[in-house]
Structure formats: C-alpha cells, structure tokens
C-alpha cells in the first residue's frame, strides 16, 4: 500500500510529524505582536489522519504553515520523520483553501509542474500526471484550464498535484471550505480513498465539526488564541461514517461543548480588540 519513498529513509518509529512545544508570535518585537500558537506539542503517526479543529483565528492554519516550513517558528521545534524542519519540502505538501493551481497552465501541466522542477522528462511526467488525474477522477480533463473546472474539480486537481510529489505528509488548510455541502461530502469520501491508497499522513484543518468527525482518526481541538491543545478526541469508527450514527451524536455534542467555550473566548477577545481600536480612534 505504501509507495511513499521518503518514508523509508526515516528513522524507525519516528512519527511523521512531531511538534515540540511549538510557539509562533507574528510580528515579534513590535507593538502589534500577536501570539498565534503557544506550547503546542503533538505527534502525528505514519498514515494517521489528524484533524485540527478550532475557532477562526486560533492558529491552526499557522501551525500548518509552520509544519510546511513556509514560516519560521518562534519557539520549540518541528520534526518530520525525526528530521528538524527548516524550510519547505515536497515531502510535506500543503493544499490551500482556494485552489492554487496556475491559471496559465492546463490541468495536466499543473499536476506535472513539480515533476518538471525535479527535471523529469516531458513525456514521462505527462504520463505520471495523466495517471494521477485518472486516480482523482479527472481523466479526460487533462487539457482543460483550471478556470474551466468547478471548485470541487480544482481541489481534486490540487490534490493530484500534491500527490505527484509523493509526499509522506499531506497538509490541508480548509481545502473544502469554499465548496457547497454536497460537493464537500463527495470530496471527503474522495480524500479518505486517496489517504488510504497513498499511505500518507494527513493533517487537516477545519472549523466544521461534521467534517472533523467524517475524516479523523484523532480530532485535535484548539483553544482560542494563542492556540494550544484543549483536548484530543480519538474517533475509532470505521469509515465511511454515517452522520446519523448514534455514537457520532454523542461525539458531536462533546465536540460542540469543547468548541463553544473557545468560540466565546475568541469572540470576547475580538470585541476587546474592537473596543481598544474605538478608544484609540
């Protein structure tokens, strides 16, 4: 099942991602410094599906960018397969909320873009990309441009582009947030399939409780800013999960309770900031 070459080079037993007391302060040293993350520690196992759930602005996306190596952390350390993360790496692919496909390239050129950077020959990388597009259900759309695809199809293509790099970790930043409910449910099923076939670990950010429950092995509930772990809720149910399952009902209530406090806190803080701005003005 696992054809992820990168994983084999890792020290035995090292988690796919290991966050050790990670902290991030935006604009550190300025009077507008914001502490986004504080003392965040989490291990993500190989081929584990972890969902990061929390109110808006709690730092869950920040964490994803830190793990991707796109931003520098201000405290702690992050390791991928036991190796400290110092910058972006195609082994940890990030999928964005809005598709980041390049509109000047066809779908197949988008998917093979990373392979082109690696210097793979044109015919070979086209073959790889075409196969991946079939895998994500976009066979026959190779020569379309991204703006000719629907939102859901664009995200499938973005997943195919990530998979082309054969990453051992997929980081997903609310990838389905811009989609309608029906498409979203479809893509969740699709993602589960992809996750199983690829053998990669997934870190998935959302603020939708139902989405978290449909996908996760473990749900990591964030506190309001500065974000840290409030609770980790394991979900040991077979997929696909039926949202009408009574076991999920209890779980949903539990997650709603956990989140409610934090949403209230996040709102209170935002109002405080707004009041401060009013006083300043």
């Amino acid at each position, binding site marked *: 099942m696992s054809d992820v070459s990168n994983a084999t080079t890792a020290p035995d037993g090292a988690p796919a991602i290991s966050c050790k007391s990670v902290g991030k302060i935006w604009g550190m040293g300025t009077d507008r410094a914001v502490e986004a993350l504080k003392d965040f520690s989490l291990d993500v196992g190989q081929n584990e599906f972890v969902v990061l759930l929390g109110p808006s602005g709690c730092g869950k996306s920040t964490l994803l960018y830190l793990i*991707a*190596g*796109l931003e520098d952390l201000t405290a702690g350390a992050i390791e991928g397969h036991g190796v400290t993360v110092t*910058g*972006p*790496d*195609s082994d*940890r*692919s*990030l999928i*964005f909320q*809005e598709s*980041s496909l*390049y*509109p*000047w390239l066809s779908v197949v050129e988008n998917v093979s*873009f*990373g392979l082109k*950077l*690696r210097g793979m020959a044109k015919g070979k990388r086209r073959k790889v990309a075409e196969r991946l597009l079939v895998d994500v259900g976009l066979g026959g759309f190779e020569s379309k*441009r991204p*703006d000719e695809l629907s939102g859901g199809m664009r995200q499938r293509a973005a997943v195919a*582009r990530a998979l082309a*790099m054969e990453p051992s970790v997929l980081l997903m930043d609310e990838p389905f947030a811009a989609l309608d409910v029906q498409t979203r449910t479809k893509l969740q099923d699709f993602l589960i399939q992809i996750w199983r076939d690829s053998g990669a670990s997934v870190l998935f950010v959302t603020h939708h409780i139902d989405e978290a429950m449909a996908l996760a092995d473990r749900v990591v509930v964030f506190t309001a800013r500065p974000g840290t772990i409030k609770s980790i809720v394991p979900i040991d149910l077979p997929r696909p999960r039926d949202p009408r399952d009574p076991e999920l009902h209890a779980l949903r209530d539990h997650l709603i309770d956990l989140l409610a406090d934090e949403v209230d806190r996040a709102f209170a803080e935002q109002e405080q900031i707004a009041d401060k701005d009013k006083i300043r003005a």
Partner: protein
Amino acid sequence: MSAPTVKARRKWLPGFATAAIWSIASVALFAGIWEFCWYMRWANPMLMPPPHMFLQDVLYVGKLFDKSTRLGNPSDIEIVLTILKTVGATTMRVIIGLIAGLVVSLAVGMAIRYSPLFGKLVMPVINLLAPVSPIGWLPVAMLIFGLGDAPAIFLVYIALFFIMTLATLSLIDRLPSSYVQSARIMGASRLQIFVLVILPAILPGLFVVLRINLFAALMIVLIAESVGVGGGLGLVVIIARNTFDAQLAFFTMFIIGAVGFVLDIALRQIQRRVLYWQA
C-alpha cells in the same frame, strides 16, 4: 416574457457584427451632425470642413505629407506611398516604444522584487523621476539621440516605463501568496519562482496597463514629432497649423484616430489569444 425574444434575436448576428453595426451607427451620427451643420452653413468649411470634404481629396492632402512630394510633382502612387510611409513611421515608433517599455519595466520591476538590495538602490530614483512628465524628457531625448526615430521611441518608452514598473511591483505584491508557496513546496528555486510563476502570473495584468497607456504613447509620439524629431504624423499636424490648412488638419486627425483604433484592436487580440488567463 420578452427576454427569450431578445436572446433569439441576438443569435442572428455574431457579437462582433453587432459591435461593428453600433460603431458604424455612432460614427455616422457624429459625421451626420457635422455634415448637417455644414449644409445649413452654420460651420465655415474653411475652418471646419465636414468629413466628405477632408476625406475626398486624399491626393491633395497626401502631397503635403512630406517635403519631397510637397515641392515636386509626384505621381498618385508616390503620394499614397508617402502617406503610408508617414503613418508607418509613427506606428513603428509607438510599437517599438511599447515593446521596450513593457520589456524593460517588467525586467526592472521583477529585479526589484528579486533582489531587495537592488530595490533599495533603485526605488528612490524611480519614485523621484516618475512624476516628471515625458515632455520634460523631450530635450534630453533630443540631446542624447539627436533626430529621427530614436528620440521618439525613447519618449514613448519613458512615458510607459515608470507607470509600468510601479504596476509590475503592485501586481507582484498582490499575487495570491499560495502561488509562490506551492511552488516553494514543490521545490522551486527563487529564480524558478520568478520565471515560471510570477512572470506568467502578472503578464495579463501588465498587458492591461499597457493597453490603457497605448493612447498616452500615441500622444507622446505626436508631440515628439511635432517639435521636429523628423517625420511622422505629428509633423504633418504642425504643417497644418503653420499653413492654416484645416483640411490637412482634420485628415491627419482622422488618420491618427484610425491608427489608435487599429492598435487597440491588435492589443486586445493579443490579450485575448495569448494572455487569456486572469492573474
């Protein structure tokens, strides 16, 4: 219930035909009012000759286009060639100036964002020189390049360079950050990001800026030509002024308008066919 009827009627004619019909109607209305004023003797034909007058005598006005034909006794073909040569000279100056402006400002703008050191060294000078009108550059252009095509092209280039360099910077800064970030994750080097991602991403937007500045480029070429860098439609305008030849003046204005119109259509076609994507 009238909506379907409208749709059905639109299918009769392709879009460009409808647009063409409206263009013709618009021009015809304008020319018609002018002709009517002449017919009613409200407009003096010596000062405001109506379109049918200044357009009919191409050979007369064409003869005035250039020294060689003005003084001699040229054949009809020579006169027509003279007109085409003059129009061609002005058009080439605009086109070369546009290309130079696009290429250099794109290169400088990207270099500024590529190398912060270069940016810090260059930006203050660009900000200082940007407000200087191209007219201010005119003496400089003639001092450096003398007469002929070079100073006219240089002025078009200058008219575009500052605007388009600043536009390049703003376009780069407003790109979705995910474009660059996903390229970084896929292992792109800084140079690869600039060439393979940022350049194609900003080209359509920059081309729109180029199109907006086409008419400014045309104006500046005419000004350069009218102060005597040599030849071109701008020189004909000045000849018309100096000889109080209204027929020549309006004929030249018509030609200038037509050149601008055709160039705009050409740029639009390039935009639609080559740079079809939105940044």
